[in-house]
């Protein structure tokens, strides 16, 4: 990662204004997702200036925490999601993460991954890419990877995933400037995204492609028609029910349905 000599002279870091809990009005919503214990909370704290409790053990963040920061004149709301290995199961923490990525309409989802075990972490990143295109993959814990003699080829990773890749060590602050720039480029549409899709061809991809326009007709403006199509093909009864009862259509029409309901105090202390 770029090692810049003089932090004070660096333009990007001087333009970061940590707003802490004072989110107020914001221009963009950024979600932080990732496997447990990859340092999401460290990234969150570094960007917002908050001190959500970080701990070296999986499953610390159970609910979402949110904070804000200002960068290059734009105001961002940052939402720290619970760590999860997969978006496909029914555990409550995973559901919170998935629902937010799907229906919280984040302008960008940052998938925080652990550089020391990239393969397992990519499973989640690929699942997020499957349901969302505006993604930045943050390969965190680079300091630890270095210690273990692991090198990450960010360009190769970027080519494969088709979204911006940033290498960081959130605890020391390395690479966070690049992360801010990458997020900015994604939310403002300044970077072309070709998200990797695991279902590239074959009957499954064709089936999804056929259903997507039909979903869009039923629920125009739904942020994630592709996911709904996939769930229908998987025979998910709850999605069927949600379509029949009109719940999904409501989500599509309502503005910011998943607007923050959890008290700010959680973000403050990481606890209730």
């Amino acid at each position, binding site marked *: 990662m770029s090692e810049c000599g003089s932090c004070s002279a660096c333009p990007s870091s001087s333009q970061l204004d940590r707003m802490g809990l004072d989110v107020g009005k914001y221009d963009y919503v950024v979600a932080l997702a990732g496997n447990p214990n990859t340092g999401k909370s460290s990234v969150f704290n570094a960007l917002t200036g908050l001190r959500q409790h970080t701990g070296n*053990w999986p499953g610390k963040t159970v609910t979402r925490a949110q904070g804000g920061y200002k960068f290059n004149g734009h105001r961002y709301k940052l939402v720290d999601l619970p760590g999860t290995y997969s978006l496909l199961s029914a555990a409550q923490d995973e559901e919170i993460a998935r629902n937010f990525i799907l229906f919280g309409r984040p302008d960008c989802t940052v998938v925080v991954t652990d550089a020391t075990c*990239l393969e397992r972490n990519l499973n989640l990143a690929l699942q997020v890419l499957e349901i969302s295109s505006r993604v930045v993959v943050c390969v965190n814990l680079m300091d630890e990877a270095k210690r273990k003699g692991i090198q990450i*080829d960010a360009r*190769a990773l970027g080519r*494969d995933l088709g979204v911006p890749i940033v290498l960081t060590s959130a605890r020391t602050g390395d690479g966070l400037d690049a992360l801010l720039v990458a997020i900015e480029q994604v939310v403002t549409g300044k970077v072309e995204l070709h998200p*990797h899709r695991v279902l590239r061809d074959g009957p499954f991809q064709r089936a999804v492609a056929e259903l997507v326009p039909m979903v869009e007709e039923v629920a125009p403006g739904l942020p994630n028609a592709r996911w709904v199509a*996939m769930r*229908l093909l998987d*025979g998910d009864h709850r999605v069927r029910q949600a*379509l029949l009862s009109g719940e999904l259509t409501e989500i599509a029409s309502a503005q910011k349905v998943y607007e923050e309901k959890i008290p700010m105090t959680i973000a403050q202390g990481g606890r209730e």
Partner: protein
Amino acid sequence: MSEPTNPVDALLDRAQDLRQTLGGNFRDELVEAIYTDAQAIADRASVKSDSGRLDFDQRIDRLLTAPMLGLPLMLLMLGGVFWLTIAGANVPSQMLMSGLFWVEGAGSRLFEHLGAPWWLTGFVWHGVYRALAWVIAVMLPPMAIFFPMFTMLEDLGYLPRVAFNLDRLFSKAGAHGKQVLTMSMGFGCNAAGVIACRTIDSPRERLIAILTNNFVPCNGRWPTLILLATVFIAAAFPPEVASVAAAGSVAMVAVIGVLFTLVLSAILSRTVLKGTPSAFTLELPPYRRPSVVRILYTSLIDRTMFVLWRAIVFSAPAGGLIWLLANITISGHSLAFYLTDWLDPLGHAIGLDGVIVLAFFIAIPANEIVVPTILMLYLGNTMMTEELSSSSSWRSLFVGEHDWTLLTAVNLMLFSLLHNPCSTTIYTMWKETGSAKWTAFGALMPLAVGLVVTFTIAQVWYLFT
């Protein structure tokens, strides 16, 4: 919504058709594609050179999670933390006490000098202020030592190793492996531990974890345990090993708590909450060098001040209430006298006394104030708090004036471990389970266990003495 050419129906029908032609294994296909791609991409993007440092983590792990050595090492570490806490907290506690009680004396004299009515002086200084002073003096020093050490172990990455060591026992009890982690959080705060149970997928296992979380002592109860160990257990041993014995007894209470967690989980999972434990993967995170600033911040601001503030908030009104109970008299006796007199038979049956039982009632909002409440109820109207600033003077108060025995100390420690959760935890249980029935069960079951255990010990004790 029931027109003949409803687009929703069309969509659902088409999806159903496609599902049948595809054979219905969409999800397997997707998961497999994801795994294959993740492996290929990770292989291309990461290069690993051989280095000796990796083995270092593994070597430590082999030691700390060894089948025979893991648990004893864990106990040793726990005991060490308690020993440092007990040995280190004594002197600052005494200094705080004499300082704070000097203020009480000076404040009440000032009020008298200004001609304030006696009940105002009493309520403010000997009620509200005194409870605050007790809570701060008794709780602050041990917490300021215990929490940084606990946070450091957490930051290092030791807690998941604890979970790993205990996992086998928990799966035998029919509980989820993650319950070890929620239990560990309970050592900090039971309400936080109950919230953490959300990470357990299976509703059955989540309920077990929620209901049994209270069996491990939380921040609010450590000071009670540490204090009793210092005053009673340590005094029963020669001075050279006194603090070690005290630390050992606190560690033993923690172990008893874990045992009760296991036993009750096993009973629950074999009776009302039957089922097989589900599998889970536990990641052993790498050891990380803890950052000193963050440890100090987390442990002192997030934990110590949080707990102390809670104790202060609850102790001030409790102090006022106790003073009123001790000073409102009906036909020659105070309200506190009637209450404790009425509770005395129950207290005696479980090896305690009426004052202690009353203290546990008053301390329902916060376990932190059990010992300060007992002290205030015992002292009643006496102003002589300045003399109570060493553990030997506490002993003479408890043993000399209120007939405490080793049974009282042991049963008080056990009852402090095994009784109803604090009101915050009960409220959290209700929010997490959404069921009044399970909340009531979670609140009363530990109390019943505590009553049975202390009653049995007391009856056996009375039999032999």
